[in-house]
């Protein structure tokens, strides 16, 4: 995967204008624009060693980082989008889907399944931003809902890692109502007393932020992630003024009381384990250890 994400341009692309850079060794940070040694970036969990910028990562990279080795079993990988609106702008939606599936290797913008983190079993859904900006249509909504329902049936904690621009325009009303569907499933999860931890990655906006993402029992975010209902450009166009520095970033949301903590990627797994352990009783831990 690492060699691939470089080619795909998932993380900072080299602008060759500044001279010859040996391909594959150095990359330019999207945030501070410095050239940084790729291996060092990878060692830090795809974080810029100079400015601490957290590069956007794919769902599979996230899972590799977070889940115990070989513990992850994917569910619902065979769900694939259709084109119920027969949507066409400059391109047909069906063509976009095909292109995205080829590019990302997944059928839609979320990967769901079950596995363990530090030995704790969890149900997890991770957004794939590379697939149409992580946007939520019928497939994403259905898969997230199924994850929530599985978590409830099995009584194991739910983790959703959001990284999405919001609801998908190409399935307009169907996308919109996925927000209601996922929230309804979360209400049932809550009544069953199963914990839900939401992790927000850059960006989490629109219909995803305005549904399950901001309803976690505990909400974590990566540093500087853009989190908000309306996109910054839409707001600027509406109010006709420039937005203040840091507006809608994770730090801003924490200050305003909407998230619990900002976690560096290298501390993410230990933090998750600590939180998961708090929701487990001594007896359950003993039982897990015995098993």
């Amino acid at each position, binding site marked *: 995967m690492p060699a691939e994400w470089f080619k795909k341009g998932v993380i900072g692309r080299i602008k060759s204008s500044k001279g010859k850079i040996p391909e594959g060794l150095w990359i330019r940070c999207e945030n501070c624009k410095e050239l940084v040694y790729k291996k060092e970036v990878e060692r830090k969990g795809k974080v810029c060693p100079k400015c601490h910028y957290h590069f956007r990562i794919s769902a599979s990279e996230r899972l590799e980082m977070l889940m115990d080795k070989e513990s992850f079993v994917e569910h*619902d990988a*065979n*769900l*694939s*989008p*259709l084109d*119920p*609106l027969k*949507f*066409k*702008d*400059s391109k047909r939606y069906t063509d976009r889907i095909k292109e995205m599936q080829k590019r990302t290797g997944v059928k839609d913008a979320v990967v769901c399944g079950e596995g363990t983190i530090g030995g704790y079993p969890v149900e997890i859904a991770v957004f794939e931003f590379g697939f149409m900006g992580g946007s939520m249509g*019928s*497939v994403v*909504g*259905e898969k997230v*809902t199924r994850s929530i329902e599985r978590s409830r049936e099995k009584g194991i904690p739910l983790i959703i890692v959001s990284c999405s621009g919001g*609801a*998908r*325009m190409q399935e*307009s*009303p*169907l*996308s*919109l*109502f*996925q*927000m*209601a*569907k996922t*929230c*309804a*499933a*979360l*209400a*049932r999860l809550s*009544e069953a007393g199963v914990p839900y931890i939401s992790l927000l990655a850059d960006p989490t906006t*629109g*219909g995803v*932020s*305005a*549904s*399950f*993402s*901001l*309803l976690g029992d505990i909400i974590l975010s990566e540093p500087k992630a853009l*989190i*908000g*209902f*309306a996109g910054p450009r*839409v*707001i600027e166009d*509406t*109010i006709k003024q420039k*937005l*203040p520095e840091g*507006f*809608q970033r994770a730090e801003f949301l924490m200050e*305003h009381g*909407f998230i619990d903590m900002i976690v560096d990627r290298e501390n993410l797994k230990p933090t998750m384990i600590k939180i998961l352990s708090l929701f487990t009783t001594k007896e359950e831990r003993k039982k897990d250890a015995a098993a």
Partner: protein
Amino acid sequence: MPQQFVLDFERPIVEMERKIIELRTIGEGSRINVEEETQKLSKKLKRMIRDTYSKLSPWERVQVARHPQRPYTLDYINGFITDFVELRGDRRFRDDKSIVAGLGRFEGRFTVACIGHQKGRGTRENIERNFGMPHPEGYRKALRVMKLAEKFGFPVITFVDTPGAYPGIGGEERGQSEAIALNLYEMSRLRVPIVVCITGEGGSGGALALSVGDRLLMQENAIYAVISPEGCASILWRTAEKAPQAAEAMKVTAKDLMELGIIDEIVKEPLGGAHRDPDRAISIMKRAIRRNLKELMAKPVEQLLEERYQKLRGIGVYSESDT
């Protein structure tokens, strides 16, 4: 009543109406018999309206849905809710006038909670109502009143008509996303019947936050979309001028939403749209609400909640293969 605000495609209709009125005035003042002529014109007018309205494009429907003389939430409330007591404020921050909420008696019979987006009439009121675009405190007020209704077993009627939640600094600071999300979550399990009436613009998450319920009734010229046609066009076509194409592509009409399994019923409007005869539009809506409330109020609450959940659960179109 003459129409003050005329849409482009309505011009010939309004022109014809004016002619008929003129003819009548002439007839009154003289001995010329205009009866036959006016009758002929009136027939022609009716046909004209029927023709125009039977083949509205999605974009034309968007304009009807946004018509400034269309009945708004308070018009419906005044139309069939007696003893209405408006309730103000979210008890957290302030009162958001772009959402109206309160208790009253449905047709003078039993207490219900009514909650809806409220657009203004004219510039001054529109500024006060923020053009029907709520901030988080509006959604929190709505939720507060829904919880009140739940506590006392009052059914909830919502009216949906907003361009969207307001995209601004304050709204983001106070948690626009969280406020909308929480409404979706709580409405899915509110232990009283909820009838949702989509009466104008169903704009994105800001509309959805009042749209979770047991029955979704949508007026035939109302629209519903994930983003405004202008917004969609400026992203996908890179210019807002392609809004008509975007409206078409996004399948915004009541008929589309019925076919996609999102709404339960299309509510008829008077010939030529609700703005041409608001009283009739209100009365048709009242009957639809009455019928649905009657059915829902007869159901045990557990059944109500299960059906509400299953209905949401079933929304979505995808393929699931074995491989």
